[in-house]
């Protein structure tokens, strides 16, 4: 899978990360300042640890892959980038760290669940379900990096190492911002006010320390307030006079105060699942975001088999929605390594358009997904209480 399916994003962010080998430290300013002369014009939308991790890995594998690798990364031509016969090797090499992290997540799930049988079940569900395999190896985005850290954080929570757990979340935010959303729910588990304040401060200090060296207009525009970062809170409805209610933030606030005032002995895992699923249910999400919640859902699936049908249905709908986006690289574009002839195929969006409004179908699926999610959250809270 890793070798055969190609999403162009993996080439774009690896091209950007390749500048680390040339000694570029601040990739955000570098790309903005040199946009005119670079073959690929995109900004670097991820946070600094992504750049250093991918760039560091590339520095190690580039000598093995040969000089053609760097020219392939910088090739802007949409045809020759996929007809290059070495693309299979490049894809395998670039996605190899994902495999290591994928297995690491499975191993941590094994450690997290005490019941041996359930732990083995979680291990197998994680490694052998088509959804995470597609998310990790077909779309090939970088989300597995923060995901592995959030699972590690969960493991530390179980061992009552709360400060280490929030520190890991701060580190995870150095790849992508979303782990910071999980911090408030963990902070409430602090034993006293002082500890709670530290539990909030630590991850933000770590995240700040990672970002400070890069603070510039280019960094703010490219990563901090990019659509990818702010998208989680974009859906809202107007209450007039320019004000709106942000749906994701409402959900997060409700969960936070429920945990603070009503549910005195909270289960952090349930809150994290609820928060992430509310965000996906009430916003236009990118398919790779689903990976954020996948390990946590795996734990629930292993522990409560009654939820299998509901979770499977919600998962299939969640994956189906982005496949209906008007984006070739969600579906047909992934087959371009097989042949450019697949460019001649219409996307599911266009096919559905002939008989039905595809946006309407997306809305139907998203609404059903939101309904299923709300029942799942209710059930999780009910069982745990």
């Amino acid at each position, binding site marked *: *899978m890793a070798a055969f399916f190609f999403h162009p994003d993996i080439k774009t962010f690896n091209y950007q990360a390749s500048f680390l080998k040339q000694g570029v430290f601040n990739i955000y300013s570098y790309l903005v300042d040199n946009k005119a002369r670079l073959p690929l014009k995109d900004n670097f939308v991820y946070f600094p640890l992504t750049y250093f991790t991918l760039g560091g890995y590339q520095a190690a594998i580039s000598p093995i892959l*040969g000089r053609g690798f760097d020219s392939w990364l910088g090739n802007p031509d949409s045809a020759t980038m996929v007809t290059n016969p070495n693309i*299979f090797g490049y894809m395998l090499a670039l996605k190899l760290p994902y495999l290591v992290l994928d297995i690491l997540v499975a191993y941590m799930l094994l450690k997290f669940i005490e019941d041996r049988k359930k732990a083995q*079940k979680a291990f197998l*569900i994680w490694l052998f379900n*088509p959804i995470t395999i597609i998310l990790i190896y077909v779309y090939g985005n970088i989300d597995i990096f923060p995901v592995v850290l959030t699972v590690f954080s969960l493991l530390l929570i179980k061992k009552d190492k709360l400060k280490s757990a929030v520190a890991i979340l701060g580190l995870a935010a150095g790849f992508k911002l979303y782990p910071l959303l999980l911090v408030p729910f963990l902070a409430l588990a602090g034993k006293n006010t002082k500890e709670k304040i530290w539990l909030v401060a630590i991850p933000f200090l770590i995240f700040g320390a990672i970002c400070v060296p890069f603070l510039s207009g280019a960094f703010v525009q490219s990563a901090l307030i990019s659509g990818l970062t702010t998208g989680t809170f974009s859906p809202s409805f107007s209450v007039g006079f320019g004000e709106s209610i942000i749906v994701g933030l409402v959900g997060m606030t409700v969960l936070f105060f429920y945990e603070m005032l009503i549910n005195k002995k909270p289960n952090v895992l349930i809150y994290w699942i609820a928060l992430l699923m509310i965000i996906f249910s009430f916003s236009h999400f990118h398919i790779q975001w689903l990976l954020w919640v996948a390990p946590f859902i795996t734990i629930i699936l292993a522990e409560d088999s009654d939820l299998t049908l509901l979770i499977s249905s919600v998962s299939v709908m969640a994956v189906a929605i982005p496949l209906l986006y008007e984006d070739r690289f969600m579906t047909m574009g992934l087959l371009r390594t097989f042949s450019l*002839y*697949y460019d001649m*195929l219409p996307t599911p969006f266009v096919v559905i358009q002939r008989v039905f409004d595809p946006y309407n179908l997306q809305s139907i699926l998203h609404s059903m997904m939101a309904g299923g999610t709300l029942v799942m959250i209710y059930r999780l809270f009910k069982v745990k209480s």
Partner: protein
Amino acid sequence: MKKLIWFTSIFILVLIFIVPAIMVLGIKIIPSDVQPPLQYTQDVYQDLYISQEFTSLLPNLTDIGMSIKNPNLKDQNDITLSLYDQNGQLVRTSKLNGLNIGDGAFVKFQFSPIIDSLNQRYSFTIMSPSSYPEDLFELFYTDDKPSWIGQMQFNGKNVVGGLSFVTFHQPVSKIGLIKSIYSDFISRFLHLHSQKSI
């Protein structure tokens, strides 16, 4: 759990080996090559027209695709492609309206398939007599053209370069297309092993 492992293993194998073959059944036309670079533009309006010679690389020639500039859909007139065989006989015509041509859009001039087009030489002219200098179409051309694209002319005068266009053809058979995709794919995949020594 065994069921899940079997399901996922089969799912992956199907996705890699069967799905690409099934999807081929939906391919109605195939390009003969990739579109050459879009370097320069040439205006087409009133009596300004472009002619282009080419050799068809495949049978069943059915579309000629190219990128056209039409800023803000300003030119809402017709643009016509007339296709001639090597004896100068008109064999097909195809017309598009500017309303359907977004700025820089890749558009296809469609016509009924020419079954015996393989290795035949053709030429076409593009004209838009109803357009005016203030609302005109611009066609892309390039210095970096492949050998199957022949001589280009602006108003009957030979010029250097060639239009950035590509021809499309109906596949002779779906099975043949599947074979050609898989053999090309396998030859590129096996090429990987020859790179080990680098």
